[in-house]
């Protein structure tokens, strides 16, 4: 059996590992366009600020792949999938497969900024290469401008704030981290980031154009007309699924690759897809969306790998769960945090420097936003995932959740670590 | 708090350099001596309610706590001591009888400390208990006058029921109610492992103790709590409790708040009602009545068990013991006035009764004078602090000894003497679930077993030194004892010679 996995990040690696678990002899080849072995892309902001070494970013020790007999081909851009002949083309070679998994992840969405393209100090922020280039340019006199106050933009801003003179963040939306924060919490987070990180925000703004000297940007002009000096421009307004390869191969694609939500199979029975490049079904509201989050990618990769090797693992349901920190401010979110409508209620617990918002649909917890109150957030996550009836729980769930949230029988299961999830 | 004219007794000293504010003391003190400050992080102490039970001291991971005696001098007065003044103030405040727990703390003579033991030299080899058999097995029960045999090796005697103990140490009566079920369970488990008996006291038999009933002594006391046919038959032997050393002539009173569902079931009384043991048995106003009760119990148990009687050591204890023996008691326990209690009026505890040493010596001699000592078993109770006390008691004439305080100390008791408050931090003298669970029977029974095994070893060591290899030969062997600093009269009553004689 020949397995090919395109992409060596969360989903790709999980897929390859799962295949190996279920098929001890099959030939597994992982193509990654990166020039190094699979590493933690989310760590690049930490690399940027200097708290993580490159060697610590590797997801597995190099010797691991040999031991597991997983072949990783680095710097390998897969150009095409030949479904008819069941092979993929990379470089000048073509590699046959019996089962193929596409885990190509995301690509940055680059906003149309006048005069920014091709400039030497304008970067996207997605991979280590980006981070290395940025780090080479950034210095203590650097004035950086980040376009986008989403997760990637803010992580970039945080990283830069440690090494640059100033960081300005420009965001079209009226609040920071719009995908994970509601209005109220966003306000306090913004304030925190301003004081703690000395980041200047320019909300409800876009960068209209960049001014440059030669191929070096020197300043940007905002939609308000305000001009910000700029030695380094980061374009981080968001990502899109990298589904081009699938599309070219004639697989069903809309925003991302269309897959069966349980088995990860694409419209081709020998081709699977997993991770950020796919369209998931959110189990909490049934909506189809791209859930570009690590745990989801791993779960999908595992399911895809299992299916490819003839196993039975599936994804029971996808939902978003995300944790992130800025200057020690821990933000943890899960589920339908932007749920709207009368079906949903929420409860906000504010105390001191912490914020906790729990979102309910009837008696079920369907989402949470935790800021500096993420202790045992996983218990909430499990309540969301299992759709537990909150009203039946004997203990208080608004404080720090613990085993005593649950009745004795459930508690015994939990204390033994025997939850069937 | 209102002014009560009584200085506090102890000061909790917290070494701030060592205190890590872990709050263990805060959570462990049922008297609420320790508390978190307004910041919710820093721990402080309020010494006023400290009883010196040492729970906090013993659990403090850094040794940051120390309990000191609170020194507050009164004008010297050998008569009006601070204690009397304080007791007066307490009574002036409450108008009540002063209650206290455990045995009397008053400095009455402890004769064990005035008796020395003998050992062999030259003329008689001492015996090494690690090399030679050393027997401490003790058989309790009424004995026939003599053995009858068909021939050597074949007994024809009709033997009354006997109880075999693998150590002469038994655990004295402590009821479920006065102590926690976990404490009772620990003693039951220890008794089983040690081959001895525990005494359920007058609180009935909790169903959890069923596996240990062959190691249980069940009491029939004046309140008759929990007494029914099953209770009597689920035992090794039955003990009629006439009196208790710590409170001769006084009944018992378990306040309603300690009568939990479990306690009420075991005692067969309504939950939350006071459990009152009358001062006398209202069906025993004479020795004849007493004899009938013994007879009734023997009938109820099909003559399958010895019947014991426990009396407090009072002035004419010897004559009472003799009367009990003649009334049909197979085992007679004498409880000396230093014995412990869950709660007793302090005035009674500290003033009524006589020491076990004298009562035991007198009773043993009396029974011998009457030629009936070998027919019944004599059990001594009332404060045995170490194995040497046990050895001395046996040499004075006891068959076995009842111990309660020592195993309780093994389980954590620090003699703070506030058993009556029900707030025992060690989970012993309390029914509060959050406190009783502190006493894990699996740990505590082992500690009790260790303690008694240690004492057994010491008893064997002492016996070996005397050149004796069976406790039978120690029993009543008063020549192994010598008094030190005792008057002629005391020596006479104890039936021992003075050291040097």
């Amino acid at each position: 059996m020949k397995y090919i996995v395109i992409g060596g990040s969360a989903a790709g690696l999980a897929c390859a590992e799962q295949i190996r678990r279920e098929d001890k002899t099959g030939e597994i080849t992982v193509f990654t366009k990166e020039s190094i072995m699979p590493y933690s892309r989310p760590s690049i902001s930490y690399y940027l600020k200097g708290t993580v070494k490159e060697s610590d970013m590797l997801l597995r020790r190099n010797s691991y792949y040999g031991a597991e007999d997983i072949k990783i081909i680095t710097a390998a851009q897969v150009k095409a999938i030949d479904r008819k002949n069941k092979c993929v083309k990379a470089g000048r070679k073509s590699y046959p497969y019996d089962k193929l998994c596409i885990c190509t992840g995301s690509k940055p969405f680059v906003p149309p900024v006048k005069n920014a393209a091709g400039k030497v100090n304008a970067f996207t922020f997605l991979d280590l290469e980006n981070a290395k280039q940025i780090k080479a340019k950034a210095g203590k006199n650097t004035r950086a401008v980040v376009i986008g106050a989403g997760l990637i933009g803010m992580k970039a801003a945080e990283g830069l704030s440690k090494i640059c003179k100033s960081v300005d963040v420009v965001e079209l939306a009226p609040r920071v981290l719009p995908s994970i924060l509601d209005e109220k919490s966003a306000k306090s987070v913004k304030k925190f980031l301003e004081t703690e990180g000395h980041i200047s925000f320019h909300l409800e703004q876009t960068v209209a154009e960049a001014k440059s000297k030669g191929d070096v940007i020197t300043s940007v002009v905002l939609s308000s007309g305000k001009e910000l000096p700029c030695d380094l421009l980061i374009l981080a307004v968001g990502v899109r699924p990298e589904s081009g390869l699938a599309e070219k191969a004639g697989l069903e694609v809309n925003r991302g690759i269309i897959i069966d939500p349980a088995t990860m199979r694409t419209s081709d029975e020998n081709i699977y897809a997993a991770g950020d490049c796919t369209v998931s079904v959110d189990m909490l509201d049934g909506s189809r969306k791209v859930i570009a989050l690590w745990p989801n990618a791993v779960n999908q990769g595992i399911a895809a790998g299992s299916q490819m090797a003839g196993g039975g693992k599936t994804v029971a349901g996808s939902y978003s769960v995300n944790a992130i920190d800025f200057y020690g401010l821990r933000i943890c979110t899960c589920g339908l945090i932007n749920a709207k409508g009368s079906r949903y209620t929420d409860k906000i617990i504010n105390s001191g420097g912490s914020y906790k918002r729990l979102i309910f649909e009837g008696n079920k917890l369907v989402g949470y936003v935790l800021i500096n109150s993420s202790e045992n957030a996983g218990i909430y996550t499990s309540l969301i995932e299992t759709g537990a009836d909150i009203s039946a729980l004997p203990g208080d769930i608004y404080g720090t959740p613990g085993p005593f949230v649950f009745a004795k029988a459930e508690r015994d299961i939990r204390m033994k670590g025997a939850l069937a999830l | 708090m209102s002014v009560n004219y009584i200085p506090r007794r102890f000061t909790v000293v917290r070494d701030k350099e060592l205190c890590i504010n872990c709050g263990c003391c805060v959570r462990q003190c049922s008297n609420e001596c320790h508390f978190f400050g307004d910041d919710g992080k820093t721990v402080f102490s309020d010494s006023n309610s400290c009883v010196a039970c040492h729970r906090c001291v013993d659990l403090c991971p850094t040794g940051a706590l120390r309990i000191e005696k609170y020194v507050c001098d009164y004008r010297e007065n050998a008569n009006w001591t601070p204690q009397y003044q304080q007791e007066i103030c307490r009574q002036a405040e409450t108008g009540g009888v002063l209650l206290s727990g455990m045995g009397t703390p008053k400095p009455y003579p402890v004769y064990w400390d005035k008796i020395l033991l003998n050992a062999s030299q030259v003329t008689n080899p001492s015996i090494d208990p690690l090399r030679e058999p050393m027997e401490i097995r003790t058989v309790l029960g009424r004995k026939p006058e003599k053995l009858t045999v068909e021939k050597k090796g074949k007994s024809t005697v009709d033997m009354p029921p006997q109880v075999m103990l693998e150590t002469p140490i038994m655990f004295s009566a402590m009821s479920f109610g006065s102590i926690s079920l976990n404490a009772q369970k620990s003693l039951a488990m220890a008794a089983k492992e040690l081959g001895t008996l525990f005494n359920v006291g007058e609180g009935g038999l909790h169903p959890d103790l069923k596996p240990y009933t062959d190691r249980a002594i069940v009491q029939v006391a004046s309140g008759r709590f929990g007494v029914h046919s099953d209770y009597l038959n689920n035992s090794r032997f039955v003990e009629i409790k006439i009196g208790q050393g710590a409170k001769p002539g006084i009944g018992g009173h378990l306040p309603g708040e300690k009568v939990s569902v479990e306690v009420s079931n075991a005692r067969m009384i309504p939950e939350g009602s006071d459990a009152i043991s009358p001062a006398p048995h209202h069906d025993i106003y004479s020795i004849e009545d007493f004899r009938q009760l013994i007879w009734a119990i023997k009938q109820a148990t099909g003559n399958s068990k010895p019947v014991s009687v426990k009396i407090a050591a009072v002035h004419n204890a010897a004559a009472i013991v003799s009367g009990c023996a003649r009334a049909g008691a197979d085992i007679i326990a004498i409880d000396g006035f230093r014995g412990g209690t869950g709660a007793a009026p302090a005035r009674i505890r500290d003033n009524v009764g006589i020491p076990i040493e004298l009562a035991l010596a007198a009773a043993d001699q009396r029974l011998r004078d009457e030629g009936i000592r070998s027919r019944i078993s004599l059990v001594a109770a009332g404060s045995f602090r170490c194995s040497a006390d046990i050895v001395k008691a046996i040499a004075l004439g006891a068959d076995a000894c009842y111990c309660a305080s020592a195993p309780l100390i093994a389980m954590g008791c620090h003699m703070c003497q506030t058993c009556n408050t029900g707030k025992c931090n060690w989970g012993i003298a309390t029914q509060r679930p959050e406190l009783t669970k502190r006493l894990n029977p699996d740990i505590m029974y082992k500690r009790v077993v260790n303690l008694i095994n240690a004492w057994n070893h010491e008893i064997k060591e002492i016996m070996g030194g005397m050149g004796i290899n069976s406790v039978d030969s120690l029993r009543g062997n008063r020549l192994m004892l010598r008094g030190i600093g005792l008057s002629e009269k005391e020596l006479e009553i104890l039936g021992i010679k003075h050291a040097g004689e």
Partner: protein
Amino acid sequence: MKKVYAIEELCLNCRLCEVYCKTAHSRSKDVVKANKYEDPAPVSRVTVYGDNFLSAALNCRHCDDPRCVKACITGAMTKDKKTGIVYVNEDKCIGCMTCLAVCPYGCIKTGKTAVKCDLCRNEGEPACVKNCPNHALVYTDKGGESK
């Protein structure tokens, strides 16, 4: 594998397990220094929940198929194949706490990085068990059934 199980009927809420866990995972290994003076302060891997009436200490369940490992975005969280112990490599961990967000038992604690029970590195009885005054924590491979 041998894991730590809590018996809530025996838990005293003294929280000494936390004190000794911190000590065992401190630099000084001294109970006072570890709990009072060390900076950064060591984080307890075990947490006592509840009050004096009902409490229990909980630490990592070292799941067979650990979610934290799957969710770890840096590869810092691993399950040792031989011992089954789930470790966090604190050099690799960036402290995003995704692991915490997916642990259904609430067994991952937040320090500078993610912090969790390592069963005291498999060196005999873990400190929490060793120092539990009431044997409310047992270290056993019998699935916590044995008391």
